[in-house]
């Protein structure tokens, strides 16, 4: 018996790759006018499910129906034509074209080869009116919009194709709080129009606010489906990881030692505008703030990757000067974890052991020649210490899951023997199990006298593991206060300049 509201249903869908089952008898119903959250760790099968919905993969067995008839798209184009639109994490926007051209991209209306501009304008205006965002004008160049704005352009693109199902894949992972709030409003409006929304996200709080129903995927199975209002976060997390996460933020025993890093009057070329901070051994200092406030730039300036206009950086009492040479900082024990794991953090095609040992490669060499065996042994040791799941040290780092990639990036800092860690969004885009492990690692490091500066857009984790917290707002870093003196509201207040 099919619920009359059901627009799309997947029944007993199976998809295998090699010997592993990526999806195992998954059945999901989507109803008109609901936001349905897909929750699960990385590798749980969310993206496979998405790709089956969009026609990029064909299921091995099982059936799908859309609006009562069989649905078996042979590709994204056919899926879109049938009313199933995808909005991917990586934006599909042509930055040099106008908003209007982007929205109509791929489904232009034309008469004898010429574009029907009036028709375009009418359709675009109709779609944009629903978004209700004054920044997004049809003639604006798409590349000049914020990431959030570009995402809305993609939503508009889905609207002009009369999508009945819209799938959002991690839509807020690179949005500012404000853009995210706007996106939520839009999603609620879409829901009001009777569109079924599939919402995939790592941010459980956000899912909880937005979704009507949810399905938890684990190891390729749909382990739980229910109404959001009838559950709580702990129950969802338990379903996701298959075990109790009693202590997501383990508290470690630590005592602050001497000051190892002090930054005063730091000003970059554009950002940050003004920043002072001081951190001691065995301390975790959190830096909260909106995306674009200058937190990343601050860390990069401290590390010597970004040019600075003024400011002093002292590492263990030694002035670092203004040279753009991270090497000098690294020799004093400073290590930076990049927020952009794929673009900057790791050389994806190179092996785990290469990535792990780049900063201290000379330690495994005599006269410039490497001792590959010794290096492999040490790399294996670190991989074990941070529990990287892999086929071995020689595997390309790009083959690993996000969580394991991040563990390699962290292991690199440890191998480098850094004891002043600048961590930029260390848990972005990784599954909750890996997050818990990384929190534990950071705690343990601080307990052994490492100083950690941690930038994050995920306030609960900062509140959970930091000793002190400072907030960056429009390039200016606030004073760092003990974590007990902050509330989430107070942080947001400072961050938004209120």
């Amino acid at each position, binding site marked *: 018996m099919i619920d009359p509201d059901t627009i799309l249903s997947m029944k007993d869908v199976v998809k295998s790759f090699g010997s592993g089952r990526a999806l195992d008898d998954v059945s999901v119903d989507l109803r008109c006018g609901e936001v349905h959250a897909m929750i699960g760790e990385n590798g749980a099968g969310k993206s496979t499910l998405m790709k089956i919905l969009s026609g990029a993969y064909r299921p091995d067995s099982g059936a799908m129906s859309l609006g009562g008839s069989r649905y078996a798209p042979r590709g994204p184009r056919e899926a879109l034509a049938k009313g199933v639109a995808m909005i991917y994490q990586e934006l599909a926007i042509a930055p040099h074209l106008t908003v209007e051209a982007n929205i109509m991209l791929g489904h232009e209306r034309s008469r004898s080869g010429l574009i029907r501009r009036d028709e375009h304008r009418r359709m675009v205006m109709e779609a944009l009116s629903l978004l209700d965002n004054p920044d997004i004008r049809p003639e604006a160049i798409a590349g000049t919009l914020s990431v959030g704005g570009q995402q809305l352009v993609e939503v508009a693109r889905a609207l002009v194709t009369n999508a009945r199902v819209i799938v959002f894949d991690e839509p807020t992972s690179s949005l500012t709080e404000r853009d995210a709030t706007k996106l939520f409003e839009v999603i609620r409006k879409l829901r009001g129009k009777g569109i079924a929304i599939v919402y995939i996200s790592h941010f459980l709080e956000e899912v909880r606010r937005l979704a009507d129903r949810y399905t938890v995927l684990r190891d390729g199975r749909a382990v739980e489906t229910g109404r959001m209002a009838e559950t709580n976060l702990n129950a969802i997390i338990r379903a996701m990881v298959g075990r109790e996460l009693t202590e997501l933020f383990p508290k470690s025993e630590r005592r602050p030692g001497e000051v190892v890093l002090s930054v005063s009057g730091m000003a970059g070329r554009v950002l940050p505008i003004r920043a002072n901070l001081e951190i001691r051994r065995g301390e975790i200092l959190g830096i909260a703030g909106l995306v674009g406030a200058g937190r990343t730039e601050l860390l990069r300036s401290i590390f010597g990757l970004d040019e600075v206009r003024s400011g002093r950086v002292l590492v263990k009492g030694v002035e670092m000067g203004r040279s753009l040479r991270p090497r000098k900082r690294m020799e004093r024990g400073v290590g930076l974890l990049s927020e952009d794991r794929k673009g900057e953090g790791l*050389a994806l095609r190179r092996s785990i052991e290469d990535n792990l040992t780049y900063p201290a490669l000379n330690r495994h060499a005599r006269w410039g*020649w490497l001792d590959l065996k010794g290096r492999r042994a040490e790399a294996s040791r670190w991989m074990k210490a941070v529990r990287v799941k892999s*086929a071995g040290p020689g595997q*390309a780092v790009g083959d690993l899951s996000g969580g394991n990639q991040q563990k390699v990036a962290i292991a690199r800092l440890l191998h480098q023997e850094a004891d002043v860690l600048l961590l930029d969004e260390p848990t972005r885009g990784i599954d909750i199990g890996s997050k818990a492990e990384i929190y534990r690692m950071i705690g343990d490091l601080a307990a052994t006298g490492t100083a950690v500066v941690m930038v994050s857009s995920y306030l609960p984790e900062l509140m959970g593991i930091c000793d002190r917290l400072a907030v960056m707002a429009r390039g200016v870093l606030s004073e760092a206060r003990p974590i007990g003196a902050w509330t989430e509201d107070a942080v947001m207040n400072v961050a938004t300049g209120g």
Partner: protein
Amino acid sequence: MAVDEFEAWSSQTKVNLGLRIAARRLMTLLGPFVGLIIVTGLFAFLTRHTGSFLTSANWRTIAVQTVIVGTAALGMTVIMISGGIDLSVGSVVAFVTVAVAILVRDLGVSIPLAMAAGIVIGGLCGLFNGGLITGLGVVPFIITLGGLKIFRGLAKWLASSTGVYVSGDAKPWWFGKLLAIDPKPEWLIVAPGIWMLLGLSLMVAFGLRYSVLGRYFYAIGSNEATARLCGINVPLVKLAVYGLAGLATGLAGVLQFVYLDGMGDPVTADGLELQVIAAVVIGGGSLSGGEGTVLGTLVGCLFMSVLNNGCVHAGISNASQDIIIGAIIVVAVALDRLRRRGCD
């Protein structure tokens, strides 16, 4: 996950993943070999009546024809691994032949010394390219395109636009034997120049695998931002890349000088860079950097030589030759992309 559970997971997946990775590596390595075998088989079939293709003399010829391209390709391999490209190879080779010839003819330098100087001149040309690339922050394609014209122009200017001949008395006894198709003594089997190329290849392969610098080349080519993040001195390493590759190009120039029987020719080796780049790419190198092996490059060079030589023996016209070679390059690279998509 408990520790023992984790261990169990690792050992179980390790076998699967390990096999897959090994298979992939084998594919990457075998691809060019398979191509080489197919082409060889094809020409053997086409020339089955004359039988002139599959003779040891002809293969010694092919080997000699590979030496100069191969030597330059070793340098290009290193450059392309680090994410760069060098379009000035042909011009540098011509410039070096002229410079060596002028050193001998007009300045009375002995040939061995002039040949050594030729290698150094190649290295300096490389440093010139590398210096401009890192100093100006302009992409290698443009800088070396400039180099292509500049070095060619220098060669013509030095040589007054004609061949520079070295007198026969200046040539030492071994000069003509370096690239002789029938080497003396016979136990060498192939020309000494080929042994030189093989030795150099071993050195480069060893360096890429076992030296810190070699790992840095791959790091920069794979992701320059990562290299910077890891404190690698990117400009310095790039300078090393172009300098070292320049030495190889210089050696190729010296060999070209030998091949031309002691002549400096300002218009020689025109378009050599394209042949060299094609060889590297056929051998598994990538224009976007981070990939490439010495073995692959050598096979790629041999592939190109066999193709050229085979076309001649099969009586294929020069015009058709060009089209065939062009098509094969495109197919080889397209196949390579397909293989890569399989990996991602």
